[in-house]
C-alpha cells in the first residue's frame, strides 16, 4: 500500500522548519523506522534521525508520530495508515531540534545527573544482599525505563517550566530511593521535594500513558512523594497539601477546601489570596468556612484509617 509520510524537517541554523512529503510502499509488518530507513536509503539520504537497536530497547528513535510520542521502531504503519491515511512524523516536543528529527538531549541527561543517578549503598562491604520479591518488584517498573524521552516530551509541567525535574529523572530517582540497599534516602527526598521537584507534577498522566515500556513514571512520582512524607520531609507546600487532605478526610470524610488552602500555604500566603478570595466570595464560590458537614458513617472512615495505620506500623 502506498502511504504518504509527512515529515517535519529543519536545519535551525539555516531556515524555518517545513513539512516534506514522501510516498512509501508499505508492506505488512513494516514499522515507521523501516519507512524512515527506506526514505533515507533511497529518495532522500539527507533526512536525519537517530536509530540503533530497532527492537525497542535502546531508546534512540522516540518521535512524535501522528501527534503523540512513540518509538519509530515498534510502531507498525498499517494500523495507523488505515485510520488516518497519512503518517506525520515530527521530532519530540519539549525538546530543541538539532536537525530534522534529531533533538538535543543535553537537558534530558542534565536532569538525570541532578538526581545523583547511582546507588549509594548503606553498606559498601556487603557481598550479596537478600532482596525479597516485593523489594525487587517495588523498583521493577521504574527500571524498565529506556530513556527515550517520550515522557518528558508530553509532560505538561515541563512544557511550562523547563526546570521541572520531569518524569524520566523522577523514575530514575525512585529506582534508587526505592532500592532496599540505598543509604541516603532522606537526603535524596529532601532534594526532590524542593523547587522544580516532584511536587510540581500536575498529574496529567501523559508520562505513564505514552511510556513505550510501561515504566510508569507517574507511579514513581507518587511513590517518591509518599516516601518523602513517610521519612518526614514535609516542610513544603506539596506535602502539606497532601497531609491536610489526609486530615480533612479523617475529620469530615471529604475535602475541606478552605482549611486545605490555609494549611498548604500557611497563614501569610493565604492572606495573599484574599483579593482573589473576595472575587470568589461575590460569586458564592468560597466554601463555607465554619459549617462543613461531615459525611454519614464517619466511624467507618476512622476505622479504615486506624486499620491502615496499624498495618503500616507492622511494616
Amino acid at each position, binding site marked *: 500500500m502506498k502511504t504518504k509520510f509527512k515529515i517535519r524537517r529543519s*536545519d535551525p*541554523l539555516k531556515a524555518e522548519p517545513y513539512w516534506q512529503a514522501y510516498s512509501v510502499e508499505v508492506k505488512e*509488518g513494516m*514499522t515507521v523506522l523501516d519507512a524512515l530507513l527506506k526514505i*533515507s*536509503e*533511497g529518495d*532522500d*539520504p*539527507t533526512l*536525519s*534521525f*537517530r*536509530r*540503533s*537497536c*530497532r*527492537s*525497542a*530497547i*535502546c*531508546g*534512540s528513535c522516540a518521535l512524535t508520530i501522528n501527534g503523540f510520542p512513540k518509538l519509530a521502531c*515498534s510502531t*507498525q504503519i498499517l494500523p495507523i495508515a488505515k485510520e488516518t491515511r497519512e503518517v506525520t512524523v515530527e521530532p519530540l516536543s519539549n525538546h530543541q531540534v*538539532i*536537525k*530534522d528529527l*534529531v533533538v538535543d*538531549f543535553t537537558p534530558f*541527561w542534565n536532569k*538525570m*545527573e541532578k538526581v545523583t*543517578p*547511582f*546507588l549509594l*549503598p548503606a553498606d*559498601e562491604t*556487603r*557481598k*550479596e*544482599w*537478600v*532482596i*525479597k*520479591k516485593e523489594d*525487587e518488584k517495588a*523498583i*521493577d517498573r521504574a*527500571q*524498565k*525505563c*529506556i*530513556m527515550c524521552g517520550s515522557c518528558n516530551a508530553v509532560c505538561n509541567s515541563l512544557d511550562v517550566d523547563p526546570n521541572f525535574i520531569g518524569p524520566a529523572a523522577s523514575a530514575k530517582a525512585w529506582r*534508587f530511593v526505592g*532500592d532496599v*540497599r540505598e543509604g541516603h534516602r532522606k537526603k535524596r527526598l529532601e532534594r526532590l521535594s524542593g523547587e522544580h521537584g516532584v511536587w510540581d507534577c500536575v498529574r496529567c498522566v501523559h508520562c505513564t500513558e505514552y511510556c513505550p515500556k510501561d515504566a510508569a513514571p507517574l507511579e514513581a512520582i507518587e511513590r517518591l512523594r509518599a516516601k518523602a512524607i513517610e521519612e518526614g520531609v514535609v516542610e513544603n507546600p506539596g506535602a502539606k497539601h497532601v497531609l491536610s487532605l489526609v486530615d480533612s478526610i479523617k475529620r469530615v470524610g471529604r475535602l475541606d477546601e478552605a482549611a486545605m488552602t490555609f494549611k498548604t500555604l500557611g497563614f501569610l500566603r493565604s492572606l495573599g489570596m484574599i483579593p482573589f478570595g473576595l472575587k470568589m466570595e461575590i460569586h458564592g464560590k468560597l466554601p463555607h468556612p465554619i459549617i462543613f458537614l461531615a459525611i454519614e458513617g464517619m466511624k467507618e472512615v476512622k476505622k479504615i484509617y486506624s486499620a491502615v495505620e496499624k498495618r503500616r506500623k507492622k511494616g
Partner: protein
Amino acid sequence: MVIHDVIVIGAGLAGMRAAVEAAREGLNVAVVSKVHPVRSHSVAAQGGINAALKETDSWEDHMFDTVKGSDYLADEDAVEVLCREAPADIMELERMGAVFSRDDAGKIAQRPFGGAGYPRTCYLADRTGHGLIHVMYEQLAKKNVYLYDEWHVVEIVVEDKSVRGVIALELLTGKLHRLHSKAVVIATGGYGRLFNTTTNALSSTGDGMALALRAGAPLMDMEFVQFHPTTLKRTGILMTEGARGEGGYLINKDGERFMKRYAPKTLELASRDVISRAEQREIEEGRGVDGCVLLDLRHLGEEKINERLPQIRELSINFAGKDPVREPVPVKPGAHYSMGGIWTDVDGKTPVSGLFAAGECACLSVHGANRLGGNSLLETIVFGRRAGSAAAGFSFENKLRVFPEDALKDTARGIALILNRAEGESASGILKEARDAVEGHCWVFRTEAGLKQGLLEIRKLKERYEGVCVTDRGDGFNTELVTALEAGYILELSEVMLLSALNRTESRGSHFRTDFPERNDREWLKHTLIYKKDGGYDIRYRDVVMTKFKPEERKY
C-alpha cells in the same frame, strides 16, 4: 589541545567497564562513542550472565563447558580467567547497583542455558543487558568520566608502532578533532551488520575492528560468526535463549520437537551452532513453516511468561504479530555474535603499544569457534575491567606524545573527498549488495565455490566504494556521511571474514563447510590471524593454548 590519559572508543558494557576501572586509578579518562552509552548494543542482551556462584557448581565446570562449547578453539588460559573471576564480578555489579532477579530465598537466581551443565546464568528478567548498561552508565557518571557521545572515531593514530590518540568526527557540528592520549581501548562491539539478517543494532558495523586493522593490529578468527537459533522472521530481532532455558520447545511444521534427532540429550539446550544448523536443515528439507521453525512457549503459561519473559512476549506481539501465550512464534537463525576480533592477551593488550581492546570487538579467544549463551556479557565485564586496568597501568608508565596536526589534515582530506565528490554511488546501495553477497555465501553452511564468489563480489564492491558520494553536504548531524564511513569498515571486514572462512578447510563450531564437514584437529587446532599489509592481507596462524582439557568429540 585535548589530552586524556586513557581514551575508550565505544560505550557499551566493555567500554564503560574499562573506563570506570581506569578512572578508579584516578586518571583522566574519556569515552568516545558514536551513540549515547545507553543506546549501545549491550542494552539489547537479554538472557543473562554466567558465573559459578553455587557451592555445587565450580569455575572449572564453567570452564569445561565453555571450552567444549568453543569446539576446543578457545584459549584455555583466557577461559580460566573468565570463569575464575566471574563470581567476584557478579558481586561487584550488585554493589554498583544491579538488581539481579532473585530466587525465593532472596538470593541471586540462576537459570539453565544452552551448552551449560549447570544452571549458572544470572539474569534481570529477560533484559539483563539493559539492566547492566544502565548500571554501568551510572558508574560512569559517578566516576566523572568525560563523555564524547555522538562522536565517531575515524582514525586511531599510531606512530612508531605506538598509539598517540584518535581523530574523531563530532556528529553535531561535523568537525574533526584531535584527541591525544597515552592509551586507547577499543570496545566497539561486533560486526553483525555485515549481514542482512542479524540480531545486531544498526550501529553494530565493526568500526573498531577495521580501525585496529588499519592501525596495524591483527584480527583473529574472523570466520567464526555465531548464528543465533531464535530470531524473528522478518526483522532478525532476538528471542533470548532464556526462552528455551525456561522450557520453550522448537518444533517443525509437523509439530515435532526435531532437536531430538540432532541433540538427543540436551534437545533445545544444545549449543547454538548445533541448533542453528538443525533448524537450517529442517527448513531446507521442507519441514519448516514459511522459511522458519517454531518457538513454542504455550505450555509455560501466561504467568511464567509474564514474569520471566515479558520482553519476549512484547517483542513477539509487536514485531511478529504473535502472542507466545497463545501461539508459537516463527523463528530462524540470524547472525548474532562475532567470535573473532582484535587479537589481545588476557589484559586486553594488542601487539600495538598502548592499544587495548575488550568485549565483542576483541578476540582472546574465550569463545573459540562458538560462544555459549551468557558468556558474552561476562566477557565484557571481566575483560573490560582488566583492559581498563592495564590501560591505566600503561599510561602510568608512559609519557604522552602528541601527534601533529598533519594527521588530522590527512583524515580531513579523505572525508572532504567523499563530501565533495560531485557524482558517484550511494553508500546504502553498495551496502545492500555487500550484505547480499555475505549472507548468500558466508551463512550457516559454507562452500569453497560460494566463498570464492562472495570474495569476488566484495572486492568489486570495494572498487566501487572508491567512488562513493553523498547527497547531504551539510555539516550538522550528517548521518549519510556516517553511513558512508561505516560502509568502508563493513567492506573491509567482509573481505577479511570471507578470506578467513575460505582458508579454513574444516568444520568447527559456527564455521561449517559442507565440502569439509568434519573437524580436523590435526591441521586446524589453530587461530587465523589477519594483518593488513601493502593494500592486501597477510594471513598467519597461531596455536590454541591448551592447559586442562583434551579435545574430544562434541556431543549434546
